[in-house]
């Protein structure tokens, strides 16, 4: 009895794992297809600009407000901790490095996945359910080139910009709390930050991260929409999966990227 239950458990885990691996593989294949069919997007860049508006500009409010709050909290917590070591003037460094290296790319990507990623999935899924994608195919227009690729590139281009804006707002938030509210020295706050943040290792690495996250979120979002069963439940399920899978992908990729960035690539 116990053996049987254990075996069933193992089988279940194995089955689930296989399915996840399969899904990741299918998403990667779809990503490849999207890239292959991207010529239209670059020839007619207005298609992409439209999607940058929907994915990027429409996410601005949530990104900016969240960035401000996160920065303020960092300022508060950082000041509280650093005070114990008598180095509360370094709060600017702490805020900036946390944001630029980690929180900016990661939190902005998580927000982007739930704001723009889910919208992309729902839109493509509904276009499929209402036969708009089929109609396009019948008009001899490849929906991957015309619908998927512009949304993919619009998202990928938006993501690093949003992450940078998130970090910038966060730094302003940290400044407001630490300097304006608590009274940390203005000059020390900025000069220490300027001295400690390295362009290549902190800012560029942060941008690389957000670019990778953007690719992951947009690949997942377009794939889930395109493969969604053409029903109401199908589309809502796909939307949920986009948010869940993207979030997991972002956090897992962040771990891998951080390890490489700290240890060096070779």
């Amino acid at each position, binding site marked *: 009895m116990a053996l049987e239950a254990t075996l069933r458990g193992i089988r279940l885990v194995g089955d689930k794992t296989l399915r996840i691996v399969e899904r990741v593989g299918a998403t990667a294949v779809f990503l490849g297809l999207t890239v292959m069919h991207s010529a239209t997007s670059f020839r007619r860049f207005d298609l992409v600009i439209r999607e940058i508006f929907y994915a990027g500009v429409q996410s601005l409010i949530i990104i900016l407000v969240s960035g401000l709050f996160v920065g303020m909290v960092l300022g508060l917590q950082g000041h509280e901790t650093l005070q114990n070591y008598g180095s509360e003037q370094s709060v600017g460094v702490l805020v900036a490095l946390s944001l630029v290296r980690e929180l900016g790319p990661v939190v902005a990507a998580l927000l982007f996945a739930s704001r723009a990623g889910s919208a992309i999935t729902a*839109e493509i899924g509904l276009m499929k359910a*209402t036969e*708009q994608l*089929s109609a396009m195919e019948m*008009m*001899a*227009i*490849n929906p991957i080139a*015309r619908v998927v690729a512009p949304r993919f590139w619009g998202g990928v281009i938006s993501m690093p910009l949003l992450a940078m804006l998130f970090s910038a707002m966060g730094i302003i938030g940290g400044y407001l709390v630490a300097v304006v509210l608590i009274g940390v020295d203005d000059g020390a706050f900025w000069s220490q930050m300027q001295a400690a943040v390295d362009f290549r290792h902190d800012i560029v690495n942060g941008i690389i991260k957000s670019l990778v996250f953007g690719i992951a979120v947009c690949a997942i979002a377009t794939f889930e929409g395109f493969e969604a069963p053409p029903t109401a439940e199908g589309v809502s399920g796909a939307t949920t999966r986009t948010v869940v899978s993207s979030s997991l992908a972002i956090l897992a990729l962040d771990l891998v990227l951080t390890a490489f960035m700290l240890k060096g690539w070779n």
Partner: protein
Amino acid sequence: MTNLVEISNLNFGYGSRLVLKGINLTVPKGSLVAIMGLSGCGKTTLLRLIGGQLQARDGSVTVAGHHLNDMNQDELYALRRRLGMLFQFGALFTDLSVYDNVAFQMREHTRLPESVIRDLTLMKLNAVGLRGVQSLMPSEMSGGMARRVALARATALDPELILYDEPFAGLDPISLGVIGQLIRRLNDALGATSVLVTHDVQESLKIVDYVYFVSEGVIVAQGTPDQIRASTLPFVHQFIWGEADGPMPFHYPSRTMSDDLGLKEV
């Protein structure tokens, strides 16, 4: 070549279940042919086979002299440029205005200047009596209007072959007559050939040249509208006069009522 579409000994199924069995059907150039049958009998499937969105399992589908089975995607797309299809619920692009929907294929497939596209688009909309709604979004229109816009879009590039999937479904009696007349008029004005899939007998018998009846995946009757009206085949009779029970039973095959209710025979 006198037949624009020729289907011979076609078998098709989803998974293991055969949906279409041994279909033989021809559509002469310039004619308007109806395929009738109950919901779920495989009409949409048949249209998708003609449009090359599905592949025949056995037998052949020939459109304008091309065997669809032997075509690769590029050749198929080239052929589809000569086709127009009206989807069951219109399948208008919900993110584009009426005008942009109709202009869509002209923009995608031609290099016509915008002023010419404008004239053509307005002419197409005029032909379905909807020049006045060019700036509306699809969601702002009634079902009948949306269907007419979809009709304008399907004929935007003056196709040689137009496929209609249930153009009458869900329309009020007046819109129904309007759409029916439009289908006939567009076919004759464009010198096109049309295949009309429908379960609306009365309306389609008024406008078509020839009718095929499909039941359970098999063609059970065919003829001109007059022959069909005069038919004594029980199935055709039941279908035309809308009788609830006949050779097509009201009850889906099932266990007996007493079995389902758990009644015991005494």
